[in-house]
């Protein structure tokens, strides 16, 4: 079965081939061809992920490292000990990510075929989507930090391209879209800066960037590591260990040094203890994660990123790319486990992001923005889980969240699609065959008043118009809200249990903080989701467009139904121990024990009846509260939110609606001063001083004077004449030599003979000298 590991490069190559085909032949093969190629490529990649999964199970979860065939090492500087091979890693963690990325990715590809139908740049969209898969899979399969970084930057690029996909929408919309794309890219650069620094420090500390070397198994726990340690320890005194052992990957090396203790890292100016070094590295990684995974303080790009087409929001900005930060931290669990300080910061960041984003989500009108803040909030759950050491729970929540958040985004896309349909139905009444009119956003809209198909105030009563979308949406909502037995319940519950356990068992403050914040955030989650469901699906249609909304076609509904199924049963893969009945059917902690083979610090949390009951009741209560506040009467005229109308909650709602003025805060403290500084530098320093004065006056005029001197008297007078003379000389010489070439064989033969004579004379010169005794 290990031979199947060799398939892993294909998982990157197949989407790459799909991308190239669509890039070069997309226009020729038509929409249908593009769709077959793109969906086929992602499905094949999924097939390979499944094969790798089976191979993992069959080989007893042995991690495997596979070289990229035909490619030599990417970077190899032997003198610096730097070697970055193109190595793919097959272990339970990477296979989990591969399954999620390709599985959910394939469904979203399929959905996008329907959603993007008729778009002028249909092939390009799928080129980008496949390219995204390529980079995302490089990110999760790489066996070293630098390969992960390649994927990390690559998905950033794809995210940029896809957020700004409709950069040419009329009426200023296009500008907004490309602004959003740039914002995402620039904000992410801040995070990448941290990641790069973290990687540099890692390399400095360990002399390598490989997670594990080929054939190296993760050192599971401390006592096993101690059993290994004597191999290195007894013969050598302690200072011997200051030099990194070459053949170990970073994580095992870190584990060894941690177990030994007392290791120090020399950074030239300062020498830090190994633990401090790890704290700095992990905090820098955290900065990277706050960018990619949209955490405080860098989360501001994600809500704006909703400017991209909805399948993009589902795939990149909910299910896969934004979880890269969580994956990276789980991958580095050995580092995080070692640093209490860093873990504390991670917990705080994650938990406060969860609650802040959950709060903001309550005040949003845009259907996708609500989901975007919800995503930020859920990512906060995962990051907090990493902080409290619940790596398995973080991954678990990552997987289930991929199911139900992709479902919700696709559902919202279906709603938007239906709304646009209804709107077109009204505006293009005279167009007979309106189905062939490009149905949505990208179509050039010749209209006077703006109609926003994403504003929930324009919706209402869609339950009857779009029953398929409605029911799947309910599934996703219940899963996200954490209602038993939906997937979200199990994963969220595990995070909460782990947080509480950290507080109770180890008496750690961050455990209590995380628990309190996350529980509150969970209540917010249920509330804003049911608010959304009420506004979109319940009550009566509030606009003509909503009245004429139509259900989407099967190509969009099928992925919704599959994802709804997964949202229902997805949680059963990790039933906590002690749960009656289900635990016996599906096995207990299946997912955790699967992950334990690659995530050494993964551990299972138990099940707390009281906590689960409280959490479910809280969520149910929030749902009921939402239903009561957003009752049918309130929904009828929805210019103001009921919370806004109530003066006790009006202030809070306004704050949520304004996103806590977070963007404004950044604008006034960072962007605006930066712009002023840039303007000053440009106008005063660069233009007035550097250009006008230094360049034009000082350098320019003196240079002119010097060249004048050089060119006229010196160059023309002396050098030119010398070279003209030389050229004439060579030319004359050549012309004269050429006359030997008479064309007569006898001359030539004579030439050969003379030549031979010449050679003989030269050759025998020493002989002559000998003979003459000179």
């Amino acid at each position: 079965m290990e031979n199947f590991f060799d398939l892993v490069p294909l998982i990157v190559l197949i989407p790459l081939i799909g991308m190239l085909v669509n890039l070069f032949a997309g226009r020729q093969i038509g929409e249908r061809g593009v769709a077959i190629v793109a969906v086929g490529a992602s499905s094949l990649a999924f097939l390979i992920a499944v094969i790798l999964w089976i191979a993992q199970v069959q080989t007893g979860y042995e991690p495997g490292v596979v070289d990229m065939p035909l490619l030599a090492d990417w970077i190899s500087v032997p003198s610096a000990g730097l070697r970055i091979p193109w190595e793919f890693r097959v272990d339970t963690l990477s296979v989990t990510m591969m399954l999620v990325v390709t599985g959910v990715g394939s469904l979203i590809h399929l959905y996008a075929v329907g959603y993007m139908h008729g778009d002028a740049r249909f092939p390009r969209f799928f080129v980008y989507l496949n390219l995204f898969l390529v980079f995302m899979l490089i990110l999760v399969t790489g066996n070293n930090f630098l390969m992960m970084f390649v994927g990390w930057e690559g998905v950033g690029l794809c995210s940029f391209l896809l957020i700004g996909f409709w950069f040419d929408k009329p009426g200023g919309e296009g500008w907004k879209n490309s602004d959003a794309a740039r914002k995402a890219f620039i904000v992410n650069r801040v995070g990448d800066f941290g990641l790069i620094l973290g990687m540099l420090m890692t390399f400095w500390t360990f002399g390598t960037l490989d997670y594990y070397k080929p054939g190296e198994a993760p050192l599971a726990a401390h006592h096993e590591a101690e059993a290994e340690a004597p191999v290195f320890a007894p013969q050598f005194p302690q200072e011997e260990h200051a030099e990194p052992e070459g053949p170990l990957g970073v994580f095992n090396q870190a584990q060894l040094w941690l177990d030994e203790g007392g290791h120090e890292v020399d950074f030239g100016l300062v020498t830090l203890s190994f633990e401090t070094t790890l704290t700095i590295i992990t905090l820098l990684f955290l900065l990277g994660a706050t960018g990619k995974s949209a955490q405080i303080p860098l989360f501001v790009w994600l809500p704006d990123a909703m400017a991209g087409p909805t399948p993009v929001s589902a795939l990149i900005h909910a299910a896969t790319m934004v979880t890269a930060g969580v994956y990276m931290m789980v991958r580095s669990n050995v580092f995080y486990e070692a640093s209490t300080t860093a873990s504390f910061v991670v917990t705080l960041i994650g938990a406060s992001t969860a609650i802040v984003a959950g709060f903001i989500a309550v005040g949003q009108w845009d259907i996708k923005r609500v989901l975007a803040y919800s995503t930020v909030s859920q990512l906060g759950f995962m990051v907090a889980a990493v902080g409290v050491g619940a790596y398995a729970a973080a991954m678990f929540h990552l997987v289930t969240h991929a199911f139900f958040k992709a479902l919700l985004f696709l559902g919202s896309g279906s709603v938007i699609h239906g709304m646009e349909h209804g709107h077109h139905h009204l505006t293009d009444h005279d167009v007979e065959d309106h189905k062939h009119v490009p149905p949505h956003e990208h179509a050039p809209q010749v209209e006077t008043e703006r109609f926003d198909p994403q504003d929930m105030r324009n919706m209402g009563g869609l339950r009857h118009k779009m029953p398929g979308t409605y029911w799947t949406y309910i599934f996703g909502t219940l899963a996200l809200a954490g209602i038993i037995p939906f997937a979200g319940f199990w994963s969220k519950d595990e995070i909460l249990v782990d947080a509480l356990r950290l507080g109770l068992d180890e008496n750690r403050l961050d455990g209590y903080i995380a628990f309190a914040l996350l529980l509150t955030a969970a209540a917010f989650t249920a509330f804003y989701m049911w608010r959304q469901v009420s506004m979109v699906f319940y009550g009566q249609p509030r606009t003509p467009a909503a009245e004429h909304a139509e259900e989407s076609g099967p190509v969009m509904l099928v992925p919704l139904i599959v994802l709804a199924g997964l949202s229902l049963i997805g949680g059963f893969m990790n039933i906590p121990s002690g749960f009656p009945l289900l635990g016996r059917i599906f096995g207990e902690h299946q997912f955790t024990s699967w992950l334990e083979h690659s995530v050494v610090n993964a551990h299972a949390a138990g099940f707390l009846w009281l906590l689960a009951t409280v959490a479910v009741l809280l969520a149910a209560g929030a749902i009921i509260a939402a239903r009561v506040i957003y009752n049918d009467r309130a929904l009828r005229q929805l210019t103001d939110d009921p919370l806004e109308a109530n003066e006790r909650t009006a202030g809070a709602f306004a704050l949520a609606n304004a996103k806590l003025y977070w963007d404004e805060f950044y604008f006034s403290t960072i962007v605006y001063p930066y712009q002023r500084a840039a303007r000053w530098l440009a106008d005063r320093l660069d233009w007035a001083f550097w250009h006008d004065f230094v360049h034009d006056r000082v350098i320019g005029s003196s240079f002119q004077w010097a060249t004048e001197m050089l060119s006229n008297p010196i160059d023309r007078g002396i050098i030119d004449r010398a070279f003209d003379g030389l050229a004439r000389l060579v030319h004359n010489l050549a012309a004269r030599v050429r006359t030997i070439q008479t064309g007569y064989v006898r001359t030539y033969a004579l030439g050969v003979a003379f030549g031979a004579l010449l050679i003989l004379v030269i050759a025998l010169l020493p002989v002559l000298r000998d003979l003459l005794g000179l």
Partner: protein
Amino acid sequence: MFEVPNLADYNIMATLPVMVLALSTCILLLVDLFIPTERKHLTALLAAIALGVTLVLAVLPLFDLVEYGDGPLAFEGTFVADEFSNMVNAAVLITALLGVMVAPNYLERSALQRGEYYSLLLLTTVGVMFMGAAGDLVVVFISLELLSIPLYILSGFRRGSAASEESAMKYFLLGAFSSSFLVYGIALIYGATGTTNLQAIWQTIDALAGQETSARYLLMAGGSMVLVGLGFKVAAVPFHMWTPDVYQGAPTSVVAYMSVAAKIGGFAGLLRVLVAGMPNFVLDGAEVAAWQDTVWILAALTMILGNIIAIVQSDLKRLLAYSSIAHAGYILIALAAGGRAGYGDDAARAALIYLMAYVFTNFGAFAVVIAVEGNDPTHTGLGRVRGLGKTHPMLALAMTVFMLSLVGIPLTAGFIGKWFVFQVAVAAGLTPLAIIGVITSLISAFYYLRVVWLMYFEEGEGEASMPRTLAWAIGISALGTLLFGVLPYLLSDMAREVSLAFGGG
């Protein structure tokens, strides 16, 4: 008592590539009789297949994928199938393949469509391959004749054209004249050492070292005569005078092939005889082989004269003829460097790398001449390329690449060849020669770049006809020129294990 050796001791398998080609040549000659004139491209196809198969066979051992026979020596040491001969084979077979590619259309155009063309071309190739593997002076001589005689015929292939016949006649007479020098030289060496086997010659010279015998004079004279004979083949000054006349008169497709193939053969022979057979021929008190001074002077003369006379040429073929003379000079530098003990292998590598680069560059340049000369073979004035940049941008681009490579501009194969040659020259203490090389390269830029100037900056009709196979040949040449220029390690890796030394260099 003379013993008849057992056939199994001949190690025939070691000669597999050249044998395959030799046999296919004979078969091709027969098969061709049954192919009607209007379908001669079939002969070309068969010839190409034979060359392709041989090329594959020859390249496999170069990358250590297979090993034919039992050790490098075959036929009692008269045939040496080592890395050196493998690389020579690869170079000449690529040339021959390109030569076959450009031929059918050219021959058809000039109404020369006769099947012997391909058999003769293949025979020459066989000759060069034998030369590369020569382990005996007799083999050197026979290979030289085998590679020369078909070339004489090919030069006069355009029967009825006075220029072509004159060219063949001149080539033949002068070739015969110089061959006699070679035979005389071989005889003298035999007289001095009592053997014609190169390894035995090497051992004898080793034994003679330091002794004051008159054998030294014989050896000296013999070596010089061999240098004359083979120097004629590679067009070294002062045995170069046939070159422009023959190049101008012979069919261009022949010139394209022979300008490269004859050079490969000649230098393979020179390296075998001088660097493998006589590197230890040192006169007392000297540090370098006795023949080094002679080669030194030849190299300097060849570079200087070839490049300077090329400047005043107004005909493309004559210009390239002098250019090919000049390039012989650069390879002679490597040969001279091989005269210092310990540098023989490096020199052989440098020469081979230079030749490999030269294969693509020079062949490509002549292929472009074929494209622009139209139906009139005398129509090869420099003016033919005027305005080519506008009318045939790709062709002009390829020609630019070849010209830059001939000058030796970085990122082209020509630069890599010069780099290795100059490097080994400096390492072997021949810095003055390397300096002459650099200066003459500088001079050569004048006439090469003039071609580029004419193509891009002067108005003209810029006519060219490019049938598909010719376009392919030009494309492959340009690609090879650039590929080896950008990825030089492809070449140096190939040549890494080349060694001529019989006993520790």
